[in-house]
Protein backbone atom coordinates (compact mmCIF):
# COMPACT_ATOMS: atom_id res chain seq x y z
CA UNK A 1 0.00 0.00 0.00
CA UNK A 2 1.26 3.46 -0.83
CA UNK A 3 2.51 5.54 2.07
CA UNK A 4 -0.16 7.90 3.38
CA UNK A 5 1.49 11.33 3.55
CA UNK A 6 -1.83 13.11 4.09
CA UNK A 7 -2.16 12.21 7.75
CA UNK A 8 0.87 14.41 8.50
CA UNK A 9 -0.13 17.33 6.27
CA UNK A 10 -2.39 20.15 7.41
CA UNK A 11 -5.69 20.01 5.60
CA UNK A 12 -6.18 22.81 3.10
CA UNK A 13 -2.62 24.14 3.19
CA UNK A 14 -1.38 22.69 -0.09
CA UNK A 15 -0.32 23.45 -2.81
CA UNK A 16 3.07 24.56 -1.50
CA UNK A 17 4.88 27.68 -2.65
CA UNK A 18 7.89 25.89 -4.15
CA UNK A 19 8.75 26.17 -7.86
CA UNK A 20 8.56 23.23 -10.27
CA UNK A 21 11.82 21.30 -10.00
CA UNK A 22 12.64 22.52 -6.47
CA UNK A 23 13.97 19.77 -4.24
CA UNK A 24 12.27 20.93 -1.03
CA UNK A 25 9.15 18.79 -1.54
CA UNK A 26 11.31 15.66 -1.79
CA UNK A 27 12.88 16.54 1.57
CA UNK A 28 9.49 17.20 3.14
CA UNK A 29 8.28 13.77 2.08
CA UNK A 30 11.45 12.29 3.56
CA UNK A 31 10.81 14.13 6.82
CA UNK A 32 7.24 12.84 6.93
CA UNK A 33 8.37 9.25 6.41
CA UNK A 34 10.99 9.72 9.13
CA UNK A 35 8.42 11.08 11.59
CA UNK A 36 6.26 8.04 10.78
CA UNK A 37 9.16 5.62 11.20
CA UNK A 38 10.16 7.03 14.57
CA UNK A 39 6.52 7.25 15.62
CA UNK A 40 6.59 10.86 16.82
CA UNK A 41 3.39 12.19 18.37
CA UNK A 42 2.57 15.22 16.22
CA UNK A 43 0.85 16.91 19.18
CA UNK A 44 4.18 16.87 20.98
CA UNK A 45 6.35 17.72 18.00
CA UNK A 46 7.42 21.27 17.24
CA UNK A 47 8.76 22.12 13.80
CA UNK A 48 10.62 25.41 13.82
CA UNK A 49 12.00 27.41 10.90
CA UNK A 50 13.45 30.79 10.00
CA UNK A 51 12.80 32.68 6.78
CA UNK A 52 13.18 31.54 3.18
CA UNK A 53 11.69 28.98 0.81
CA UNK A 54 12.69 26.01 2.96
CA UNK A 55 11.36 27.76 6.06
CA UNK A 56 7.83 27.58 4.68
CA UNK A 57 7.92 23.81 5.19
CA UNK A 58 6.57 23.72 8.79
CA UNK A 59 3.32 25.41 7.77
CA UNK A 60 2.35 22.36 5.72
CA UNK A 61 2.98 19.96 8.60
CA UNK A 62 0.24 19.05 11.08
CA UNK A 63 2.35 19.66 14.19
CA UNK A 64 3.10 22.59 16.52
CA UNK A 65 4.74 24.80 13.93
CA UNK A 66 6.75 27.96 14.41
CA UNK A 67 7.84 30.08 11.45
CA UNK A 68 10.19 32.54 13.14
CA UNK A 69 12.36 35.43 11.91
CA UNK A 70 15.29 35.19 9.51
CA UNK A 71 18.09 33.10 11.02
CA UNK A 72 16.48 32.65 14.43
CA UNK A 73 15.03 29.14 14.23
CA UNK A 74 17.71 27.56 16.43
CA UNK A 75 17.31 30.20 19.15
CA UNK A 76 13.47 30.01 19.22
CA UNK A 77 13.69 26.22 19.17
CA UNK A 78 16.17 26.27 22.07
CA UNK A 79 13.54 28.16 24.08
CA UNK A 80 10.83 25.62 23.22
CA UNK A 81 13.06 22.64 24.04
CA UNK A 82 14.43 24.09 27.28
CA UNK A 83 10.98 25.04 28.55
CA UNK A 84 9.43 21.69 27.53
CA UNK A 85 12.16 19.05 27.04
CA UNK A 86 9.53 16.33 26.60
CA UNK A 87 8.64 17.80 23.19
CA UNK A 88 10.42 16.62 20.06
CA UNK A 89 11.82 19.62 18.25
CA UNK A 90 12.81 19.63 14.58
CA UNK A 91 14.30 22.61 12.79
CA UNK A 92 14.07 23.17 9.06
CA UNK A 93 15.70 25.88 6.99
CA UNK A 94 17.94 26.85 4.15
CA UNK A 95 21.68 27.40 3.83
CA UNK A 96 21.56 31.21 4.01
CA UNK A 97 19.08 31.29 6.89
CA UNK A 98 21.01 28.74 8.90
CA UNK A 99 24.66 29.57 8.26
CA UNK A 100 24.75 33.32 7.44
CA UNK A 101 22.24 35.36 9.45
CA UNK A 102 21.60 32.39 11.75
CA UNK A 103 25.20 31.18 11.93
CA UNK A 104 25.72 32.18 15.54
CA UNK A 105 22.63 30.39 16.82
CA UNK A 106 23.53 27.36 14.69
CA UNK A 107 27.04 26.88 16.09
CA UNK A 108 25.88 27.43 19.66
CA UNK A 109 23.06 24.92 19.34
CA UNK A 110 25.73 22.47 18.12
CA UNK A 111 27.99 23.34 21.05
CA UNK A 112 25.24 22.86 23.66
CA UNK A 113 24.32 19.51 22.12
CA UNK A 114 20.66 20.20 22.86
CA UNK A 115 18.44 17.34 21.76
CA UNK A 116 16.95 18.67 18.52
CA UNK A 117 17.30 17.81 14.83
CA UNK A 118 18.21 20.49 12.31
CA UNK A 119 17.47 19.72 8.66
CA UNK A 120 19.34 22.13 6.40
CA UNK A 121 18.07 22.24 2.84
CA UNK A 122 21.16 23.43 1.02
CA UNK A 123 20.33 24.69 -2.44
CA UNK A 124 23.38 26.96 -2.44
CA UNK A 125 21.41 30.17 -2.99
CA UNK A 126 18.94 32.66 -1.48
CA UNK A 127 15.97 31.55 -3.55
CA UNK A 128 13.10 33.55 -2.07
CA UNK A 129 14.79 36.91 -2.63
CA UNK A 130 15.70 36.02 -6.20
CA UNK A 131 19.05 34.25 -6.23
CA UNK A 132 21.73 36.06 -4.23
CA UNK A 133 24.83 34.07 -3.24
CA UNK A 134 24.86 32.40 0.18
CA UNK A 135 27.70 31.08 2.35
CA UNK A 136 27.13 27.75 0.57
CA UNK A 137 27.42 29.07 -3.00
CA UNK A 138 30.51 27.58 -4.69
CA UNK A 139 33.36 29.93 -5.54
CA UNK A 140 33.02 31.16 -9.09
CA UNK A 141 29.27 30.47 -9.34
CA UNK A 142 26.89 33.05 -10.73
CA UNK A 143 24.24 34.61 -8.53
CA UNK A 144 22.22 37.79 -8.88
CA UNK A 145 24.79 39.55 -6.67
CA UNK A 146 27.86 37.82 -8.16
CA UNK A 147 27.45 38.74 -11.84
CA UNK A 148 31.20 38.23 -12.41
CA UNK A 149 31.40 34.98 -10.45
CA UNK A 150 31.39 34.40 -6.69
CA UNK A 151 34.63 35.51 -5.01
CA UNK A 152 33.64 33.94 -1.65
CA UNK A 153 34.72 30.50 -0.51
CA UNK A 154 31.82 28.28 0.62
CA UNK A 155 31.14 26.70 3.99
CA UNK A 156 31.19 22.93 4.27
CA UNK A 157 28.07 22.93 6.46
CA UNK A 158 28.55 19.38 7.75
CA UNK A 159 32.15 20.12 8.79
CA UNK A 160 30.99 23.35 10.40
CA UNK A 161 28.44 21.40 12.45
CA UNK A 162 31.01 18.79 13.49
CA UNK A 163 33.55 21.48 14.41
CA UNK A 164 30.97 23.33 16.49
CA UNK A 165 30.08 20.22 18.49
CA UNK A 166 27.02 18.60 16.91
CA UNK A 167 27.00 14.94 17.89
CA UNK A 168 25.24 13.54 14.83
CA UNK A 169 25.92 14.91 11.35
CA UNK A 170 24.65 13.39 8.12
CA UNK A 171 24.37 14.46 4.52
CA UNK A 172 22.12 13.39 1.69
CA UNK A 173 20.81 14.78 -1.56
CA UNK A 174 17.37 15.25 -3.03
CA UNK A 175 18.34 12.78 -5.77
CA UNK A 176 18.83 10.06 -3.17
CA UNK A 177 15.25 10.39 -1.96
CA UNK A 178 15.08 6.96 -0.34
CA UNK A 179 18.00 7.77 1.92
CA UNK A 180 16.58 11.05 3.27
CA UNK A 181 14.03 9.52 5.64
CA UNK A 182 16.58 7.07 6.99
CA UNK A 183 19.09 9.82 7.75
CA UNK A 184 16.45 12.03 9.37
CA UNK A 185 14.99 9.14 11.39
CA UNK A 186 18.42 8.25 12.75
CA UNK A 187 19.04 11.92 13.54
CA UNK A 188 15.77 12.25 15.47
CA UNK A 189 16.56 9.12 17.47
CA UNK A 190 20.03 10.36 18.33
CA UNK A 191 20.19 12.01 21.76
CA UNK A 192 21.87 15.34 21.18
CA UNK A 193 22.01 18.01 18.52
CA UNK A 194 21.77 16.36 15.12
CA UNK A 195 22.28 18.02 11.75
CA UNK A 196 21.11 16.59 8.45
CA UNK A 197 22.26 18.56 5.42
CA UNK A 198 20.33 17.74 2.27
CA UNK A 199 21.80 19.10 -0.93
CA UNK A 200 18.99 20.05 -3.24
CA UNK A 201 18.45 22.34 -6.16
CA UNK A 202 16.98 25.67 -7.06
CA UNK A 203 16.52 25.47 -10.82
CA UNK A 204 14.80 28.86 -10.88
CA UNK A 205 17.50 31.06 -9.36
CA UNK A 206 20.64 28.89 -9.36
CA UNK A 207 20.32 26.42 -12.23
CA UNK A 208 19.56 28.82 -15.02
CA UNK A 209 22.40 31.16 -14.06
CA UNK A 210 24.91 28.33 -13.82
CA UNK A 211 24.46 26.56 -17.15
CA UNK A 212 22.21 23.74 -15.97
CA UNK A 213 19.90 23.19 -18.91
CA UNK A 214 17.22 21.31 -16.97
CA UNK A 215 16.13 20.03 -13.60
CA UNK A 216 17.11 16.54 -14.75
CA UNK A 217 20.63 17.78 -15.38
CA UNK A 218 20.79 19.27 -11.88
CA UNK A 219 19.52 16.02 -10.34
CA UNK A 220 22.07 14.03 -12.35
CA UNK A 221 24.77 16.36 -11.08
CA UNK A 222 23.78 15.57 -7.48
CA UNK A 223 23.91 11.86 -8.34
CA UNK A 224 27.37 12.23 -9.92
CA UNK A 225 29.05 14.15 -7.11
CA UNK A 226 27.62 12.13 -4.20
CA UNK A 227 29.86 9.41 -2.78
CA UNK A 228 28.72 7.32 0.21
CA UNK A 229 31.19 7.58 3.12
CA UNK A 230 31.89 3.83 2.99
CA UNK A 231 32.76 3.92 -0.71
CA UNK A 232 34.95 6.98 -0.18
CA UNK A 233 37.22 5.01 2.16
CA UNK A 234 38.49 3.04 -0.83
CA UNK A 235 38.95 6.06 -3.09
CA UNK A 236 42.07 8.17 -3.69
CA UNK A 237 42.14 11.94 -3.08
CA UNK A 238 42.21 12.39 -6.87
CA UNK A 239 39.09 10.29 -7.28
CA UNK A 240 37.35 12.31 -4.53
CA UNK A 241 38.14 15.65 -6.17
CA UNK A 242 34.87 17.56 -6.63
CA UNK A 243 32.81 14.90 -4.81
CA UNK A 244 30.75 15.27 -1.65
CA UNK A 245 30.38 12.57 0.98
CA UNK A 246 26.91 11.33 1.88
CA UNK A 247 25.52 9.22 4.69
CA UNK A 248 26.22 9.48 8.42
CA UNK A 249 29.43 11.53 8.56
CA UNK A 250 29.83 11.80 12.32
CA UNK A 251 28.29 10.36 15.44
CA UNK A 252 29.34 10.47 19.08
CA UNK A 253 27.78 10.33 22.53
CA UNK A 254 28.18 13.43 24.68
CA UNK A 255 26.09 14.85 27.57
CA UNK A 256 22.88 16.40 26.26
CA UNK A 257 21.95 19.93 27.31
CA UNK A 258 18.45 19.55 28.76
CA UNK A 259 19.57 16.47 30.73
CA UNK A 260 22.53 18.45 32.06
CA UNK A 261 20.19 21.28 33.05
CA UNK A 262 17.98 18.76 34.87
CA UNK A 263 21.06 18.06 37.01
CA UNK A 264 21.46 21.81 37.64
CA UNK A 265 17.89 21.81 38.97
CA UNK A 266 18.69 18.87 41.25
CA UNK A 267 21.81 20.61 42.57
CA UNK A 268 19.95 23.89 43.11
CA UNK A 269 17.15 22.14 45.00
CA UNK A 270 19.66 20.26 47.14
CA UNK A 271 21.49 23.49 47.99
CA UNK A 272 18.27 25.35 48.95
Amino acid at each position, binding site marked *: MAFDYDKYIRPGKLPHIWCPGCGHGIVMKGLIRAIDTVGLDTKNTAIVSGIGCASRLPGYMDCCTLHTAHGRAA*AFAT*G*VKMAKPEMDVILVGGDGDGTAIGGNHFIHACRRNINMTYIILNNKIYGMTGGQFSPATPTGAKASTTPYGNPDPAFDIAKLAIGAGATFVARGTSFHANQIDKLIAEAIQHKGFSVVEILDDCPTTYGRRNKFKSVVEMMNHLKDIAVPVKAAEKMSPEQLEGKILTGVLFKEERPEYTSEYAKVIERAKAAK
Partner: protein
Amino acid sequence: MAKKVAFLQGNEAAAQGALYAGCKFFAGYPITPSTEVAEVMSAELPKIGGKFIQMEDEIGAMAAILGASLTGTKVLTSTSGPGLSLKQELIGYGCIAEIPCVIFNVMRGGPSTGMPTGPSQSDVMCAKWGTHGDHPAICLVPASVQETYEEMVRAFNLAEKYRTPVMVMPDEIVAHMRERIVFPEQGELEVINRTAPTVPPEQYKPYDTSFGDVPPLAAYGSGYKYHVTGLNKMQDGFPTTKAEIVQAEEERQIRKVEANKADIMKWEEYLVDDAEIVVVAYGSTSRSARFAVNEARKNGVKAGLFRLQTFWPFPEERLLELSKKVKAFITPEMNLGMCHGVVKGCIEGNAPVLGIFRVDGEPINPGQIVDKMKEVK
Protein backbone atom coordinates in the same frame (compact mmCIF):
# COMPACT_ATOMS: atom_id res chain seq x y z
CA MET B 1 3.08 38.17 61.22
CA ALA B 2 5.58 40.82 60.20
CA LYS B 3 6.27 41.07 56.52
CA LYS B 4 9.66 40.13 55.13
CA VAL B 5 11.87 43.15 54.68
CA ALA B 6 15.17 43.41 52.80
CA PHE B 7 17.73 45.90 51.58
CA LEU B 8 17.80 45.27 47.85
CA GLN B 9 19.11 46.63 44.61
CA GLY B 10 16.62 47.56 41.87
CA ASN B 11 17.83 44.79 39.58
CA GLU B 12 17.54 42.22 42.38
CA ALA B 13 14.03 43.43 43.15
CA ALA B 14 13.12 43.06 39.47
CA ALA B 15 14.17 39.42 39.53
CA GLN B 16 12.27 38.80 42.77
CA GLY B 17 9.17 40.48 41.33
CA ALA B 18 9.37 38.27 38.24
CA LEU B 19 9.52 35.17 40.43
CA TYR B 20 6.50 36.37 42.44
CA ALA B 21 4.62 36.75 39.15
CA GLY B 22 5.36 33.13 38.25
CA CYS B 23 8.23 33.56 35.80
CA LYS B 24 9.72 30.14 35.06
CA PHE B 25 12.06 30.88 32.16
CA PHE B 26 14.81 33.41 31.67
CA ALA B 27 17.11 33.85 28.68
CA GLY B 28 19.67 36.61 28.59
CA TYR B 29 23.06 37.85 27.55
CA PRO B 30 25.50 39.65 29.86
CA ILE B 31 25.22 43.44 29.66
CA THR B 32 25.91 46.27 32.07
CA PRO B 33 23.97 47.60 33.97
CA SER B 34 21.33 44.87 34.05
CA THR B 35 23.38 41.70 34.52
CA GLU B 36 22.34 41.27 38.17
CA VAL B 37 18.87 40.26 36.98
CA ALA B 38 20.39 37.34 35.06
CA GLU B 39 22.59 36.43 38.01
CA VAL B 40 19.66 36.25 40.44
CA MET B 41 17.53 34.30 37.94
CA SER B 42 20.35 31.80 37.31
CA ALA B 43 20.43 31.09 41.04
CA GLU B 44 16.72 31.16 41.82
CA LEU B 45 14.97 29.58 38.82
CA PRO B 46 16.42 26.06 39.08
CA LYS B 47 15.43 25.94 42.76
CA ILE B 48 11.78 26.00 41.67
CA GLY B 49 12.24 23.83 38.60
CA GLY B 50 12.46 26.84 36.29
CA LYS B 51 14.99 27.28 33.51
CA PHE B 52 17.77 29.78 32.99
CA ILE B 53 19.79 29.94 29.81
CA GLN B 54 22.56 32.31 28.84
CA MET B 55 22.26 32.65 25.08
CA GLU B 56 24.92 33.41 22.49
CA ASP B 57 23.66 36.94 21.88
CA GLU B 58 20.87 39.41 22.65
CA ILE B 59 18.81 38.35 19.65
CA GLY B 60 19.06 34.71 20.67
CA ALA B 61 17.87 35.58 24.19
CA MET B 62 14.79 37.34 22.80
CA ALA B 63 14.11 34.41 20.45
CA ALA B 64 14.46 31.87 23.27
CA ILE B 65 11.93 33.60 25.53
CA LEU B 66 9.41 33.78 22.67
CA GLY B 67 9.85 30.09 21.94
CA ALA B 68 9.58 29.22 25.64
CA SER B 69 6.46 31.37 26.08
CA LEU B 70 4.67 29.34 23.42
CA THR B 71 4.97 26.30 25.68
CA GLY B 72 2.76 28.12 28.20
CA THR B 73 5.60 29.45 30.34
CA LYS B 74 6.00 32.94 31.80
CA VAL B 75 9.23 34.37 30.42
CA LEU B 76 11.68 37.20 31.05
CA THR B 77 14.80 38.65 29.47
CA SER B 78 16.88 41.56 30.73
CA THR B 79 19.11 43.91 28.82
CA SER B 80 20.26 47.49 28.35
CA GLY B 81 20.37 49.99 25.44
CA PRO B 82 22.54 48.21 22.85
CA GLY B 83 20.80 44.94 23.67
CA LEU B 84 17.40 46.60 23.33
CA SER B 85 18.42 47.74 19.84
CA LEU B 86 19.44 44.20 18.92
CA LYS B 87 16.20 42.71 20.23
CA GLN B 88 13.94 45.04 18.29
CA GLU B 89 13.09 42.81 15.32
CA LEU B 90 11.95 40.04 17.63
CA ILE B 91 10.04 42.40 19.91
CA GLY B 92 8.03 43.13 16.77
CA TYR B 93 7.68 39.37 16.26
CA GLY B 94 6.26 39.09 19.77
CA CYS B 95 3.78 41.88 18.98
CA ILE B 96 2.48 40.46 15.68
CA ALA B 97 2.49 36.82 16.81
CA GLU B 98 0.99 37.99 20.15
CA ILE B 99 3.34 36.13 22.48
CA PRO B 100 3.37 37.24 26.15
CA CYS B 101 6.84 38.16 27.44
CA VAL B 102 8.56 40.71 29.64
CA ILE B 103 11.66 42.66 28.63
CA PHE B 104 13.52 44.36 31.46
CA ASN B 105 15.72 47.13 30.05
CA VAL B 106 17.98 49.26 32.22
CA MET B 107 18.49 52.65 30.59
CA ARG B 108 22.15 53.66 30.26
CA GLY B 109 23.84 56.28 28.11
CA GLY B 110 23.69 55.95 24.34
CA PRO B 111 23.55 55.79 21.37
CA SER B 112 25.65 52.72 20.62
CA THR B 113 27.91 51.63 23.48
CA GLY B 114 27.55 55.09 25.00
CA MET B 115 28.16 55.17 28.75
CA PRO B 116 27.57 51.65 30.03
CA THR B 117 27.69 52.61 33.69
CA GLY B 118 26.03 56.02 33.42
CA PRO B 119 22.32 56.61 34.00
CA SER B 120 20.04 57.68 31.19
CA GLN B 121 16.39 57.79 30.21
CA SER B 122 17.01 57.77 26.49
CA ASP B 123 15.37 54.43 25.57
CA VAL B 124 11.77 55.53 26.13
CA MET B 125 11.14 56.29 22.46
CA CYS B 126 12.89 53.07 21.44
CA ALA B 127 10.31 51.23 23.55
CA LYS B 128 7.56 52.44 21.23
CA TRP B 129 9.25 53.10 17.92
CA GLY B 130 12.24 50.76 17.98
CA THR B 131 10.79 47.90 16.01
CA HIS B 132 9.48 48.58 12.53
CA GLY B 133 5.80 48.58 11.66
CA ASP B 134 2.72 49.55 13.66
CA HIS B 135 2.47 47.64 16.90
CA PRO B 136 1.21 47.97 20.48
CA ALA B 137 3.61 49.24 23.15
CA ILE B 138 3.50 48.93 26.93
CA CYS B 139 6.39 50.41 28.88
CA LEU B 140 6.58 50.79 32.67
CA VAL B 141 9.07 53.18 34.28
CA PRO B 142 9.53 52.48 38.01
CA ALA B 143 11.18 55.01 40.33
CA SER B 144 12.12 52.94 43.38
CA VAL B 145 13.24 49.46 44.35
CA GLN B 146 9.82 48.69 45.83
CA GLU B 147 8.08 49.92 42.72
CA THR B 148 10.41 47.95 40.46
CA TYR B 149 9.32 44.79 42.27
CA GLU B 150 5.63 45.61 42.09
CA GLU B 151 5.71 46.83 38.50
CA MET B 152 7.47 43.64 37.42
CA VAL B 153 4.51 41.69 38.76
CA ARG B 154 2.17 44.03 36.91
CA ALA B 155 4.26 43.72 33.73
CA PHE B 156 3.78 39.95 33.71
CA ASN B 157 0.06 40.44 34.34
CA LEU B 158 -0.26 42.86 31.41
CA ALA B 159 1.77 40.60 29.10
CA GLU B 160 -0.42 37.62 29.94
CA LYS B 161 -3.69 39.54 29.91
CA TYR B 162 -3.09 41.28 26.59
CA ARG B 163 -0.86 38.63 24.91
CA THR B 164 1.89 41.09 24.07
CA PRO B 165 5.49 42.00 24.99
CA VAL B 166 5.75 44.38 27.96
CA MET B 167 8.83 46.44 28.79
CA VAL B 168 9.97 47.53 32.23
CA MET B 169 12.57 50.27 31.96
CA PRO B 170 14.21 51.72 35.05
CA ASP B 171 17.11 54.10 34.59
CA GLU B 172 20.49 52.92 35.83
CA ILE B 173 20.10 54.79 39.13
CA VAL B 174 16.90 52.93 40.06
CA ALA B 175 18.40 49.64 38.84
CA HIS B 176 21.58 49.93 40.89
CA MET B 177 20.56 51.75 44.04
CA ARG B 178 19.74 49.87 47.20
CA GLU B 179 16.63 50.57 49.24
CA ARG B 180 14.42 48.99 51.80
CA ILE B 181 11.82 46.74 50.29
CA VAL B 182 8.82 45.13 51.94
CA PHE B 183 7.96 41.88 50.19
CA PRO B 184 4.29 41.35 49.48
CA GLU B 185 2.91 38.11 50.84
CA GLN B 186 1.72 35.32 48.59
CA GLY B 187 -1.70 36.28 47.27
CA GLU B 188 -1.34 39.93 48.23
CA LEU B 189 -0.62 41.10 44.69
CA GLU B 190 -2.81 39.94 41.83
CA VAL B 191 -1.17 37.39 39.52
CA ILE B 192 -2.77 36.88 36.11
CA ASN B 193 -2.24 33.90 33.81
CA ARG B 194 -2.99 33.85 30.09
CA THR B 195 -6.34 32.43 29.01
CA ALA B 196 -6.08 28.90 27.67
CA PRO B 197 -8.52 27.67 25.03
CA THR B 198 -11.63 25.74 26.01
CA VAL B 199 -12.58 24.63 22.49
CA PRO B 200 -11.47 21.17 21.31
CA PRO B 201 -8.11 21.17 19.47
CA GLU B 202 -9.65 20.69 16.01
CA GLN B 203 -11.66 23.90 16.43
CA TYR B 204 -8.82 25.98 17.87
CA LYS B 205 -7.53 29.07 16.08
CA PRO B 206 -4.72 31.02 17.78
CA TYR B 207 -6.17 34.40 16.70
CA ASP B 208 -9.88 33.63 16.98
CA THR B 209 -11.50 37.03 17.50
CA SER B 210 -14.86 35.51 18.40
CA PHE B 211 -13.28 35.42 21.87
CA GLY B 212 -12.60 39.17 21.75
CA ASP B 213 -9.53 41.22 20.96
CA VAL B 214 -7.28 38.95 23.03
CA PRO B 215 -7.84 35.38 21.82
CA PRO B 216 -6.89 32.42 24.08
CA LEU B 217 -3.36 31.09 23.58
CA ALA B 218 -2.78 27.34 23.71
CA ALA B 219 0.49 25.92 25.00
CA TYR B 220 2.61 23.87 22.62
CA GLY B 221 2.51 20.29 23.76
CA SER B 222 -0.94 20.57 25.40
CA GLY B 223 -2.75 18.81 22.58
CA TYR B 224 -3.27 21.88 20.40
CA LYS B 225 -1.42 21.95 17.07
CA TYR B 226 -1.28 25.37 15.48
CA HIS B 227 0.91 27.63 13.39
CA VAL B 228 2.77 30.78 14.45
CA THR B 229 4.42 33.16 11.99
CA GLY B 230 5.80 36.69 11.82
CA LEU B 231 3.92 37.27 8.60
CA ASN B 232 0.60 39.09 8.62
CA LYS B 233 -1.78 36.32 9.43
CA MET B 234 -5.37 35.14 9.48
CA GLN B 235 -7.27 33.91 12.53
CA ASP B 236 -5.90 30.40 12.03
CA GLY B 237 -2.33 31.73 12.21
CA PHE B 238 -1.51 31.24 8.53
CA PRO B 239 -0.11 34.01 6.38
CA THR B 240 -2.32 36.20 4.25
CA THR B 241 -1.97 39.27 2.07
CA LYS B 242 -5.71 39.90 1.90
CA ALA B 243 -6.03 43.64 2.41
CA GLU B 244 -9.09 43.66 4.66
CA ILE B 245 -7.74 40.92 6.95
CA VAL B 246 -4.31 42.54 7.33
CA GLN B 247 -5.88 45.92 8.09
CA ALA B 248 -8.30 44.45 10.65
CA GLU B 249 -5.63 42.34 12.39
CA GLU B 250 -3.16 45.24 12.66
CA GLU B 251 -5.86 47.48 14.08
CA ARG B 252 -6.90 44.81 16.58
CA GLN B 253 -3.33 44.44 17.84
CA ILE B 254 -3.14 48.18 18.50
CA ARG B 255 -6.64 48.21 19.98
CA LYS B 256 -5.70 45.58 22.57
CA VAL B 257 -3.66 48.29 24.29
CA GLU B 258 -5.41 51.49 23.21
CA ALA B 259 -8.89 50.35 24.24
CA ASN B 260 -7.54 49.20 27.60
CA LYS B 261 -5.42 52.24 28.43
CA ALA B 262 -7.32 52.89 31.63
CA ASP B 263 -6.30 49.45 32.90
CA ILE B 264 -2.69 49.76 31.76
CA MET B 265 -1.73 53.38 32.45
CA LYS B 266 -0.57 54.40 35.88
CA TRP B 267 0.63 57.73 37.17
CA GLU B 268 0.88 59.62 40.44
CA GLU B 269 -0.25 63.20 40.96
CA TYR B 270 1.51 64.90 43.85
CA LEU B 271 0.24 68.39 44.83
CA VAL B 272 -1.15 68.80 41.33
CA ASP B 273 -4.69 69.96 42.24
CA ASP B 274 -3.86 73.64 42.71
CA ALA B 275 -0.51 73.59 40.90
CA GLU B 276 0.48 76.34 38.51
CA ILE B 277 3.69 74.58 37.56
CA VAL B 278 3.55 70.85 36.94
CA VAL B 279 6.75 68.85 36.68
CA VAL B 280 6.28 65.78 34.48
CA ALA B 281 8.95 63.26 35.44
CA TYR B 282 9.65 59.55 35.71
CA GLY B 283 12.24 57.18 37.14
CA SER B 284 14.97 58.55 39.39
CA THR B 285 14.39 62.03 37.96
CA SER B 286 10.94 62.05 39.55
CA ARG B 287 12.59 61.74 42.96
CA SER B 288 14.54 64.93 42.35
CA ALA B 289 11.35 66.49 41.05
CA ARG B 290 9.43 65.61 44.24
CA PHE B 291 12.18 67.22 46.32
CA ALA B 292 12.07 70.30 44.07
CA VAL B 293 8.29 70.57 44.35
CA ASN B 294 8.52 70.42 48.16
CA GLU B 295 11.21 73.12 48.15
CA ALA B 296 9.13 75.32 45.85
CA ARG B 297 6.04 74.93 48.03
CA LYS B 298 8.08 76.12 51.05
CA ASN B 299 8.72 79.30 49.08
CA GLY B 300 5.09 79.74 48.15
CA VAL B 301 5.39 78.47 44.58
CA LYS B 302 2.41 76.35 43.59
CA ALA B 303 4.29 73.45 42.09
CA GLY B 304 3.19 69.83 41.59
CA LEU B 305 4.57 66.57 40.32
CA PHE B 306 2.99 64.42 37.64
CA ARG B 307 4.92 61.18 37.94
CA LEU B 308 4.67 58.79 35.03
CA GLN B 309 4.68 55.14 36.10
CA THR B 310 3.70 54.02 32.62
CA PHE B 311 5.48 55.73 29.75
CA TRP B 312 3.48 53.86 27.07
CA PRO B 313 0.60 54.19 26.73
CA PHE B 314 1.12 57.86 27.59
CA PRO B 315 -1.55 59.68 29.67
CA GLU B 316 -2.29 62.22 26.93
CA GLU B 317 -5.87 63.00 27.96
CA ARG B 318 -5.02 63.83 31.57
CA LEU B 319 -2.13 66.10 30.57
CA LEU B 320 -4.33 67.87 28.04
CA GLU B 321 -6.85 68.47 30.83
CA LEU B 322 -4.19 69.83 33.16
CA SER B 323 -2.73 72.01 30.41
CA LYS B 324 -5.89 74.12 30.46
CA LYS B 325 -5.27 75.30 34.00
CA VAL B 326 -1.51 75.35 34.56
CA LYS B 327 0.97 78.11 33.77
CA ALA B 328 3.68 75.74 32.57
CA PHE B 329 5.00 72.20 32.51
CA ILE B 330 8.59 71.30 33.26
CA THR B 331 10.07 68.09 31.87
CA PRO B 332 13.36 67.11 33.47
CA GLU B 333 14.85 63.97 31.92
CA MET B 334 18.14 62.25 31.24
CA ASN B 335 17.87 62.56 27.45
CA LEU B 336 17.54 65.45 25.01
CA GLY B 337 13.78 65.86 25.21
CA MET B 338 11.91 62.63 24.62
CA CYS B 339 9.11 63.00 27.19
CA HIS B 340 9.26 66.74 26.48
CA GLY B 341 8.23 66.12 22.87
CA VAL B 342 5.42 63.76 23.82
CA VAL B 343 4.00 66.24 26.37
CA LYS B 344 4.14 69.05 23.80
CA GLY B 345 2.40 66.80 21.32
CA CYS B 346 -0.61 66.17 23.52
CA ILE B 347 -1.38 69.57 25.11
CA GLU B 348 -2.34 71.45 21.96
CA GLY B 349 -0.14 74.45 22.78
CA ASN B 350 -2.15 75.30 25.91
CA ALA B 351 0.93 75.88 28.08
CA PRO B 352 4.67 76.23 27.62
CA VAL B 353 6.78 73.13 28.27
CA LEU B 354 10.22 73.88 29.71
CA GLY B 355 12.79 71.15 29.37
CA ILE B 356 15.77 70.19 31.51
CA PHE B 357 17.89 67.74 29.55
CA ARG B 358 21.03 65.96 30.69
CA VAL B 359 22.97 63.33 28.79
CA ASP B 360 26.27 63.68 30.65
CA GLY B 361 25.77 60.63 32.86
CA GLU B 362 24.85 62.76 35.88
CA PRO B 363 21.43 62.75 37.53
CA ILE B 364 19.22 65.82 37.39
CA ASN B 365 19.33 67.47 40.81
CA PRO B 366 16.45 69.25 42.56
CA GLY B 367 18.22 72.62 42.35
CA GLN B 368 18.09 72.54 38.56
CA ILE B 369 14.34 72.00 38.66
CA VAL B 370 13.79 74.75 41.25
CA ASP B 371 15.84 77.12 39.07
CA LYS B 372 13.77 76.23 36.02
CA MET B 373 10.58 77.08 37.91
CA LYS B 374 11.87 80.65 38.25
CA GLU B 375 11.74 81.02 34.47
CA VAL B 376 7.97 80.52 34.48
CA LYS B 377 6.23 83.84 33.98
